[in-house]
């Protein structure tokens, strides 16, 4: 039986007279990998920020595992089981790779007292090492995150998003600026993680090849509204989608 992890219901968001998102609804089931695509200015990022509670929608509701996330702070969303990666690099440059990963998991472990004065490894070193190995960053474990290449930092960013064991991970342009070798590595790791842990992904991405090969279902936005929804094959042959992208 399917289990709804994320429910977006009739979300609309305007900035002045500009309707960035218009009455968008969809649900994401446990273990699904949903892609959100659309031309520039189609409302993807606005929708993403509404889902994350960073923007307050003018209308509609967002629930995660049945709980409304309206007005919820990002740190509370994280505790609800929502992880995310950023379009821009989002690691702590003056900490090692290991410390970045441990930090990403530490708020979910221990008592209030141990969170206040406990040792910074938080008993998570073993788990962090496994996550580092999973994302093939073992040789960089003790390097400062700021010294890593762009692609390596993207992998680290993904590893950090998974460290707290989230049920839902929102990936904001994970392929942006990553070279082909690193991209193949990232995609393979995400697919393996999804298969092994049943974690739900929502992916915003411009790289069509990446989205088509990673996602099980795709929603296409244009001018703030959903114009198509389906499997990658259905989307690839949808004339409305082709028009939206090619302006035909």
């Amino acid at each position: 039986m399917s289990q709804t992890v994320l429910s977006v219901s009739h979300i609309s968001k305007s900035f002045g007279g500009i309707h960035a998102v218009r009455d968008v609804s969809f649900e994401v089931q446990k273990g699904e990998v949903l892609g959100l695509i659309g031309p520039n200015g189609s409302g993807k990022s606005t929708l993403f920020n509404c889902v994350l509670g960073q923007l307050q929608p003018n209308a509609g509701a967002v629930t995660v595992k049945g709980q409304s996330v309206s007005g919820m702070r990002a740190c509370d969303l994280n505790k609800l089981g929502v992880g995310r990666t950023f379009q821009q690099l989002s690691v702590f440059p003056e900490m090692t790779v290991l410390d970045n990963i441990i930090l990403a998991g530490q708020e979910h472990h221990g008592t209030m007292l141990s969170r206040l004065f406990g040792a910074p490894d938080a008993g998570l070193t073993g788990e962090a090492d496994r996550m580092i190995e999973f994302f093939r960053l073992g040789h960089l474990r003790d390097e400062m995150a700021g010294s890593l290449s762009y692609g390596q930092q993207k992998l680290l960013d993904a590893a950090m998003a998974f460290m707290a064991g989230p049920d839902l991970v929102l990936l904001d342009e994970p392929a942006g600026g990553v070279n082909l070798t690193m991209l193949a590595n990232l995609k393979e790791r995400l697919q393996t993680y999804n298969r092994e842990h049943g974690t739900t992904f929502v992916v915003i991405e411009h790289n069509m090849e990446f989205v088509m090969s990673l996602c099980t279902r795709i929603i296409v936005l244009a001018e703030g509204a959903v114009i198509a929804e389906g499997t990658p094959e259905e989307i690839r042959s949808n004339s409305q989608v082709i028009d939206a992208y090619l302006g035909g």
Partner: protein
Amino acid sequence: MEQFLQVLLSGLATGSIYALAAIGFTLVWQAAQTVNFAQGEFVMLPAFFVLIAMNSGLPLPLALIVALAVSVFVLGFLFKKAIVEPMQKHGNGGGLSLIIATMALAIFLKESVKEFYGAEAQPYPPLISGGTWNIGGAIVSVTDIAHLAISLGVVVGLTLFLNRTRTGRAMQATAQNPAVAEILGVDTNRMVLYTFLINAALASLASFLITPVYLAKFSNGEYLGLIAFIAAIVGGFNQIRGALAGGLLIGVLDNITATYITAEYRAAIPLVLLIGIILFRPQGLLGTSEGRTV
């Protein structure tokens, strides 16, 4: 040689107290990306809380505890809630408006103390009163050694807290990238509040240690704030160890100048140092360059 050792130790003792206030500048900069120009008054005020508590009949140790608690509440919690947070809502994290607000706060605190306690310097009891020690022929004050030990002990303790506890690590993460820290589950508001509380505690300690030297006076903050600000810039505004180094350096240079060159121009030395650092190493002796998109 004996005299130099005497001058050096005395300078390090005073400098370590400057460093406590300078570290406060660094912490607030890292947490809120602002400069607290009321920092000098934050060092001036707790001494008056001690005097009020003592005038109410409390013995010095108890008065110090009460003053520390009141200072942490007023200069940490209330400062953040009543001034920093409302100003930060005005775009760009508060920016210039927050800096100007701290300048106004400095004037408010100074004038309030003057109004309440008068313009005259008030006698203030020393925390540690002792004799002298002979170290390698140099006669050094026990008070100086105790001040140095207390200040350095607190700085070491703070550094251990920031590097060796989960809260410290979360505070560092908040300073480096608050948006990402929040997404990863760190309650960044709480971490910033902790920073302000620590700053208030450091300023209080500096106040308790330095006021016996200067006596309690409403205008003490002007000089102390300026020296601490310069120490933070000289050492490196974004590094605690930089602020520590800057404070110690200014304390030692000040004493050496007064003893070997001239006492008349000793106040000019930190300013000359500031100009030199800004010209030749703007990131400070131990600081790192920071990029900012505007």
